[in-house]
């Protein structure tokens, strides 16, 4: 691919990414996130919320740039892979909606992407300073979560790991050991049902996130998700993800495939530790490796012209339906417009 053609394609994808994130974000009736109100509660003018949104948009776009740079550094020769990865991320509904609202998750995500970029760069340059910087940004990422919780409720530092304080699990373990009704052999009950069940429960919640319906279909009935009940990734990518995932060790070198697998596992850790139920928004960290698996699947299957055309048609349909559905559901949730929400909050605060 010629350099100017490649550059034009990159610019075009960035233009799409910008438009899809920017259009409509200053609409005062397109409000939902209480976090936005809380975050700016110290300012008397409610319109300052839009400043936060603009910042989120900026962070989203910069994160996209760094994602592109990471893939460029890892696969400098494979231009198609770079473009496909950029495109899949640019239109990813969850990433798009993360860039349209003021949440600290967006900031956290930005720091993580930056840290990964610095780590890859540090490995190439053999620079320990860059490595140190990367860990600093990872710490920032973690800190952005804690600061959010502390500002609102002054919660202890371990509070985000909600799974370990879930009263339901504690009661379940006690009941399984015969706390309420004694049954079975008590020594066996004590042997099988103890604190190790936290780990089993966590593992169960952890692997549940990777269920295809959570990634490519309607998410769980979770009103706090920015996407409501819509798809974090476009459904059309599901078969490509499955194919890319299982063929990754064949397509990539063993080391790269292994690192990718680790990134996928690590990406699911924050959301699985936060609560005993699924936290859709926090699963954003896993969407980077998932997008990469999609790209692997796409480039491997994408061989015949006919299939390409069919895929593009389906992709356009999927984009139209998905985005329309998200916006439509968003509008009809009868959430309060920002202005009212803000004034109600301020009054309550008084």
């Amino acid at each position: 691919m010629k350099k100017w053609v490649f550059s034009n394609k990159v610019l075009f994808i960035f233009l799409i990414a910008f438009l899809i994130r920017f259009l409509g974000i200053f609409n005062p009736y397109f409000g939902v996130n209480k976090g936005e109100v809380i975050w700016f509660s110290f300012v008397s003018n409610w319109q300052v919320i839009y400043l936060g949104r603009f910042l989120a948009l900026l962070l989203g776009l910069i994160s996209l740039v760094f994602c592109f740079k990471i893939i460029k550094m890892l696969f400098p020769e494979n231009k198609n892979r770079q473009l496909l990865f950029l495109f899949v991320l640019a239109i990813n509904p969850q990433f798009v909606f993360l860039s349209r609202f003021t949440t600290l998750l967006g900031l956290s995500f930005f720091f993580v992407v930056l840290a990964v970029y610095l780590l890859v760069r540090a490995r190439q340059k053999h620079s320990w300073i860059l490595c140190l910087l990367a860990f600093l940004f990872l710490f920032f990422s973690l800190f952005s979560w804690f600061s959010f919780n502390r500002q609102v409720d002054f919660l202890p530092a371990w509070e985000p790991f909600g799974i370990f304080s879930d009263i339901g699990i504690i009661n379940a373990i006690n009941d399984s050991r015969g706390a309420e009704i004694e049954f079975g052999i008590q020594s066996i009950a004590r042997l099988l049902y103890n604190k190790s069940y936290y780990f089993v429960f966590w593992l169960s919640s952890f692997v549940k996130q990777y269920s295809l319906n959570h990634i490519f279909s309607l998410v769980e009935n979770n009103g706090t998700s920015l996407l409501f009940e819509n798809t974090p990734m476009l459904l059309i990518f599901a078969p490509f993800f499955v194919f890319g995932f299982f063929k990754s060790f064949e397509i990539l070198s063993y080391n790269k495939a292994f690192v990718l697998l680790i990134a996928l596992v690590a990406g699911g850790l924050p959301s699985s530790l936060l609560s005993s139920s699924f936290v859709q928004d926090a699963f954003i960290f896993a969407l980077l490796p998932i997008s990469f698996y999609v790209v692997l699947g796409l480039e491997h299957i994408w061989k015949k012209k006919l299939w390409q055309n069919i895929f593009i048609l389906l992709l356009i349909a999927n984009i139209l339906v998905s985005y329309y559905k998200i916006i439509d559901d968003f509008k009809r949730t009868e959430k309060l417009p920002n202005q009212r929400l803000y004034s109600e909050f301020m009054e309550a605060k008084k």
Partner: protein
Amino acid sequence: MTNKKRQILALFFIFGVAFFFRFWKLSHYPVSLSIDEVIIGYDAYSILKTGKDHWGEFLPLSFKSVGDYKSPVLIYLLIPAIKIFGLNEFGIRFTTALIGSLTPLVAYFLINCLLKNKTVSLFSALLLAASPWHIQFSRATFEAVLALFFLMTGILVFLKSLKNKGKWWWLTGFFLSLSMYSYHAEKAFIPALLVSLAVIFRKKIWQFKRNAFLALVVSLLILIPFICLMFSSQGQTRARSVFFTNDFELRILRLEKIKNWSGRSIIEKTLNGEIVNIASFWVKRYLEYSDFSYLFFKGMNYTHPKFPDVGVMYYFELPFFLLGIFVLANKTKIDKEKKTLIFSWLFLGPLPASLANNSQHPLRSLTTLPMPQLISGLGIWYFINWLRKVKIWKMSKVILSFALGLAIFISIFYYLDIYYVHCPVHYSHYWMYGMKEAALYAWQNKDQYDQIIFDPDFGIEAKNIRSIPFAYVLTYGQVSPEIIHSARKENNGPLSFEGFVFRNVYWPEDKNLKNALLIASFWQLSPKEIPTEKVVKMISLYNGQPMFYLVETDKE
């Protein structure tokens, strides 16, 4: 020892394991006959005695049963067992347990036919023999176990017959047709699998087209009554009632969407309309079967949410399942056609369940078996081979082998504890625990009362379980089918026979009845309202929670 002897020994071992898991304490666990079991058992008994089901229909192809039009094969196959062992828990459960014990043997041959690897086949068959997914449904009277057995046999014959120019394909047609008669899920699964088979093996099928045509003719001949039935109102009743469009969740979603529907443009109606919502809901339902939490941690639903539970596969299988898919996709040197068949089966398996109205339904997705076990077995085989070849410290090999053995032991032991100890405590009411005791008491003391009124509704948090006490009364009283036939014909008011009446109990009115025995849950016969001396018996659930009260009214 020769290879043949080893194989026979392996087969005996597989059957032994499967038999143990399915027959051990079969009469006692599940703790009571469920609604389906008791009515299937009595219908088989009725056919045995009179040639008619309990509605009085002669040799039906679709049993009206409790209004859900059950598939016929299991009921007919139950007759010999009921003749030999009698109309009791063991007799009713025997046929499925036996077929369930034989299924891992068929799985062994099928997997060997696909992978040409006896060790993997042995591991996979053993995993199926001890699989919670299969044991659960083999230990109770579920038609799906039978349908799976015929399905696997049919595909085995198809693959075996590829070598002899498709001479036995007519047998495939026979078994697959029988499978479609056996359970509803197969009615959706088998046509889809046949299309994949036709695409995957198109060259060979074209090559032996005469035998393929013969198989088609045999299938069509067997299926003619079935096809007629499918177009009748009887056949459609079941399909309509369980189709996913009737799902409660989807109904709510659709109700929310049609708010302000009239004022919306065509674009709005197209992009966020009925078709899009129904399609995306079905996709969600289908993809839910890829949930590893369902597969390995929670799928069996033996306990309440957040309680320790068991998946449809064991915990220890999770890494081997993932490894198995990697191996199958990248490493094994098996025919491309057979590899495609394995993946097609795996992906089509949840199709019937996704088209029905519940999320993550292990029974309806039983069609996926034995592919998950094949993949786990492949993973275990690959891991053991790697362990033998890899040059690491010998002691670490011993530790790894020991850890694997321990993980398998703990997983199975844990499952048995959940199944035999915890599940009855949590869910005995769903198995209608207490109905047998109430029915037996009623029969023993029947002469003392003019009428016995048996209430079908009960529940723990609410009166949300509807049982069929008449079937328990018929079964445990070994009532002659002619009595229920004539009772069904009368069809005016609540069902009644032999002094039993099956309707809701209403204490403020029913207390005025003379010389009657009322059997109902505490929702209708609250111990606070009823004088203690009137309560002749109290029946508890398996966990000791009082559920049914047997109350007598004034004698004169």
